[in-house]
């Protein structure tokens, strides 16, 4: 086990964390501002991936596909908000869970209808193909580094958007007291649609970028959604900072767990069993971490007022 291997795994963890952040940021924003649980957020991620794969295949350009994924996911998000989600803000969480569960069924089956059951494939754009040398002698995929870079840029951009702009001020005001900002003359309905579309676009971006690493298929959204929920619950629902910390934590813990636990277990058990036990433990690890954190901090690490 060399240093290069560990660095590579850490970077993989970071890359997973950054992807999760893109999904979780929208999820936590939507919960923080509107108090809405959106199970269908994973479907927006899937829509982003499909839009990117389909448009990239049609035009031959990954970059046009990427732009299309943002547009498609934001449009789908806005449509969803205006047509359905808007009616559910005042309902309890149970109704929201059920309605968005129904949306998952509709969107998954609808996508399968349009694109068929076979997965689509998306190539890494030529600009980002290749690898970069790592300190210690290894190599690392340039594309994954680029994803990490995009994630960091989005995190900074979101921070600036929320703390420095008028829109951000309204979002923060909406989190604190929605009646008051409506009374002050802010069009709260439009604000909600904008926040929903923004969250959807981030999820779509994540889907498009992951699409070049894995196959693009129906059902890709749900595992990502569950992980994103783990992230925002660990971070504290409604907190963007919490989502960032939670995402990196989940990404790194999951990746390193899968890498190290089988080796650790091998110290105590014979090799044949160790792989199995190690893999079993590793796949449960982030949920154990989440349960531990919630047991001691029931509202997550960076609990907001929500």
């Amino acid at each position, binding site marked *: 086990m060399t240093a290069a291997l560990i660095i590579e795994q850490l970077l993989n963890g970071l890359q997973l964390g950054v992807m999760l952040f893109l999904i979780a940021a929208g999820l936590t924003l939507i*919960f923080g501002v509107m108090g809405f*649980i959106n199970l269908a957020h994973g479907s927006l991620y899937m829509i982003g991936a499909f839009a990117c794969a389909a448009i990239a295949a049609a035009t031959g350009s990954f970059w046009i596909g990427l732009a299309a994924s943002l547009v498609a996911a934001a449009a789908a998000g806005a449509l969803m908000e205006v047509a*359905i989600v808007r*009616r*559910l803000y005042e309902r309890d*969480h*149970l*109704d929201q*869970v*059920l*309605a968005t*569960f*129904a*949306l*998952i*069924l*509709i969107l*998954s*089956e*609808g996508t*399968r*209808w349009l694109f068929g059951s076979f997965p689509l494939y998306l190539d890494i754009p030529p600009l980002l193909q290749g690898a970069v040398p790592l300190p210690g002698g290894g190599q690392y995929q340039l594309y994954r580094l680029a994803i990490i870079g995009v994630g960091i840029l989005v995190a900074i951009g979101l921070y600036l958007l929320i703390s420095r702009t008028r829109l951000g001020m309204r979002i923060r005001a909406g989190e604190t007291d929605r009646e008051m900002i409506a009374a002050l003359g802010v069009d709260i309905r439009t604000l909600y649609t904008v926040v929903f579309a923004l969250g959807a676009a981030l999820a779509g971006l994540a889907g498009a970028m992951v699409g070049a690493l894995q196959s693009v298929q129906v059902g890709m959204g*749900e595992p990502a959604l*569950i992980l994103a*929920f*783990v992230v925002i*619950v660990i971070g504290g*629902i409604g907190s963007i900072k919490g989502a960032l910390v939670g995402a990196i934590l989940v990404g790194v813990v999951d990746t390193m767990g899968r890498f190290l636990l089988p080796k650790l277990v091998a110290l105590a058990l014979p090799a044949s069993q160790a792989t*199995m036990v190690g*893999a*079993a433990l590793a*796949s*449960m690890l982030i*949920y*154990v971490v*989440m*349960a531990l954190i*919630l*047991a001691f901090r*029931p*509202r*997550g690490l960076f609990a907001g007022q929500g």
Partner: protein
Amino acid sequence: MAALSRETIANGVLALLLLVVPLLAAASGETFYITLATRIVILALAALGLNIALGLGGLVSFGHAAFFGLGGYVAGILATHAFNGEALLFGLPATTSMPVIWLVAVLLCGLVALPIGAISLRTSGVYFIMITLAFAQMIYYFAVSWPDYGGEDGLSLYVRNTFPGVNTAQPLPYFLICLAVLAAAACLFWLLRGSRFGAALEAARQNTTRLSAVGIAPFRIKLVAFVISAMVTGLAGALFADLNRFVSPSMLSWQMSGELIVLIILGGKGRLFGPIAGAMVYVLFEYALGGITERWQFFLGLVLLGVVLFARGGLLGLVAGRARHG
């Protein structure tokens, strides 16, 4: 009670349908419909278990598939060991006797639900939904990656387990066993709801501060409700494994948890016959639409969305009007 309420009449009709249709099917040799009815009964039982936590206690558990699956694996594992003549842990003998399997499933689910509930109930609202999901996912991934009992591929039961004096391999006797269990569980639900405990649970759902103020600790009430609820759902899991003669991690998956919630909301939450109505409509819908189009989930989604948006008390709510209490 002078006149029967519309809900009571609706319940009566549902109970009668559930009994008469399979008997007719048996008389005309259509065993497929008996299996379909058994599926309805078992899913209704699982959802009825969840309804104790969710409907009565307001505890939205998104992880009840954990108990459903555990119950299923108890049936599968005990039967496999018995079939192969292997002893269990600590040299305990395995068995294919349903009553013993049920007892083990119920006790195990209670034992597992106790710590899960104790930790989860420290949180509330969305956090509760998500932490119960996390626990279920732990068990799911454990089952997927543990190859001894089939891992991802699941575990087949060679023959259906036995019940003293009944030929369980026949569809109708097995249906009647399941129906009897469901009836017993419905009685339990009804008794619980009407008891002092039920009143305290209802109060805990509506206002924990007031409940504490009259000197009852909400935590213990909710925990007991969660554990009982898990036990009933676990029992349903054991029956489900025997119905399909197969258990797999999909019984533990979050989609299963979601489905159980769907059954309750579809029928009407907190209502005695809510899960039964929900399971009937869901399974029949799946069957009828599945026959017409592969895309039945698309239409199921539309129907669910319609129920959430326009039929707030569930289907029984549509028939019987809004519940008088909560």
